[in-house]
């Protein structure tokens, strides 16, 4: 049952996170913080013509939040600002409601197990909240509290 939460792809991305690096030429960045578990991350974006040309992150967190940041940065590359926000909305819906899981979430569908663990939803959404903040160029660190 717990395998639904820690799917192989999540374990893989938590152990070997993709795009886990500083980005010197980022033109959008934001910090995210989950006070409950102490997770924190910095998200870097390089936006070109309102599209995500590159995305990376640094930080420390649990397997779920690390995998979420890793998979998010992979998924975002090439996406428009609009598409990124739509994706965030769909993911949020999957994690917080009982609606059937959509088939347009790509790899992000691996997080569907998280909704059975309400205490862990914040872990899966920290990177996305930070994305929203980065896209609005907010300078304040965001928190999931």
């Amino acid at each position: 049952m717990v395998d639904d939460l820690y799917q192989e792809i999540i374990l893989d991305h938590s152990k070997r996170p993709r795009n886990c690096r500083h980005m010197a030429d980022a033109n959008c960045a934001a910090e995210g913080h989950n006070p409950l578990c102490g997770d924190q991350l910095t998200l870097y974006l390089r936006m070109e013509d309102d599209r995500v040309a590159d995305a990376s992150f640094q930080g420390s967190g649990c397997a779920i939040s690390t995998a979420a940041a890793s998979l998010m940065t992979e998924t975002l590359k090439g996406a428009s600002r609009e598409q990124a926000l739509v994706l965030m909305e769909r993911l949020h819906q999957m994690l917080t409601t009982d609606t059937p899981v959509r088939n347009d979430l790509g790899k992000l569908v691996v997080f569907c197990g998280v909704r059975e663990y309400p205490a862990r939803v914040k872990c899966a959404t920290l990177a996305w909240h930070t994305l929203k903040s980065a896209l609005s160029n907010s300078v304040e660190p965001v928190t999931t509290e």
Partner: protein
Amino acid sequence: MSTATSTVSARFDVEKVRADFPALHQRIHGQPLVYLDSAATAQKPLCVIQAIRRFYESDCANIHRGVHELSQRSTALYEAVRVKAQRFLNASHAEEIIFVRGATEGINLVAGTWGRKNLKEGDEIIVSALEHHSNLVPWQMLCEEKGARVLAIPIDDRGDLILEEYEKLLSPQTRLVAVSHVSNALGTINPIETVIAMAHRAGALALVDGAQAAPHVHVDVQALDADFYVFSGHKVLGPTGVGVLYGKSKLLAAMPPYHGGGDMIRKVTLEKTTYADPPHRFEAGTPNISGGIGLGAALDYIAAIGIEEIAAQEHDLLVYGTETLQTVPGLRIVGTARQKAAVLSFVLDGIHPHDIGTLLDRMGIAVRTGHHCAQPVMTRFGIPATTRASLAFYNTLAELDALAEGLKEVRERFS
């Protein structure tokens, strides 16, 4: 079989005790519950649950000033708890026991009354680097308001207070030393008698946060010479929402009220009010009557077992748990103080405590993960969080084995 095993079984009939705790006998995710989160809140014995139920079934009325039978009964039941709490802490007078919502409110009460009245610009309050946020934030708020400063006694790598550094912090500006008796995050039992004596030598008062000590060690506020001592009911097997602030009579007598309202007055006119004597001066409004009565039942239960017996049993569990956890590869215990309560805080190489907590939960094992409301402690050890197994006398050696086995499984999954 270890020596710990034989001493535990010789001294203590844990199965008999466990029979008193209904919540322990259930399955979680199909597995028998292993409850290792008593530092967050203790499970409740049946006698506590029954006392609360009995109150609502047959004695329910508001306390004080009622002339009818039920009000007299509820008043007598409630005020009897004050005497039980007095005995529990070995206070000189029942009037030195003030009912509050919990340790947090007790500390805020002292900050808001004694602190507001007595603290001046340039004064200093000393806490320790071990404190729960509840014994840090109220003092920061007070000091910000008054232009005073909070200083912290540092801890060493074991999680012990560095008393030489404490000595250096004490000065004529020190008004109060507010330190925990036992650390919630690491389990350190502080040399609180020494801490208090040093505060007094410097002319300061001493407040002790006893939230983690009251359930596990014998407390004697007169022997300690504590000026204030607080604890929470729910950590001593009682219900949530009730706790105790002890204060020395002469200090309480000079303190202004906390909340204004009913029950805390002597005489009220539209122009002016004079206030009741302690403890009622600090107890405005209808209190948590059923909670207080439940707390009384919990203190009776502890007295019947004996706090020394409880402490000895928990010490054996701690020794066994410390040995057993060290068989888990990559596990490091955080907090190895010379004197420790039965708290096992640890990190596991490369695996975040939150993931550990979720996986253990699926095996029926309840632990706490995170910073335990003691972020400065985590900062001191350079870690974001720990996993904490906190024990009580109703835990068993088999449960500690289950924890160690569970952690080995967690490691395998993440390897």
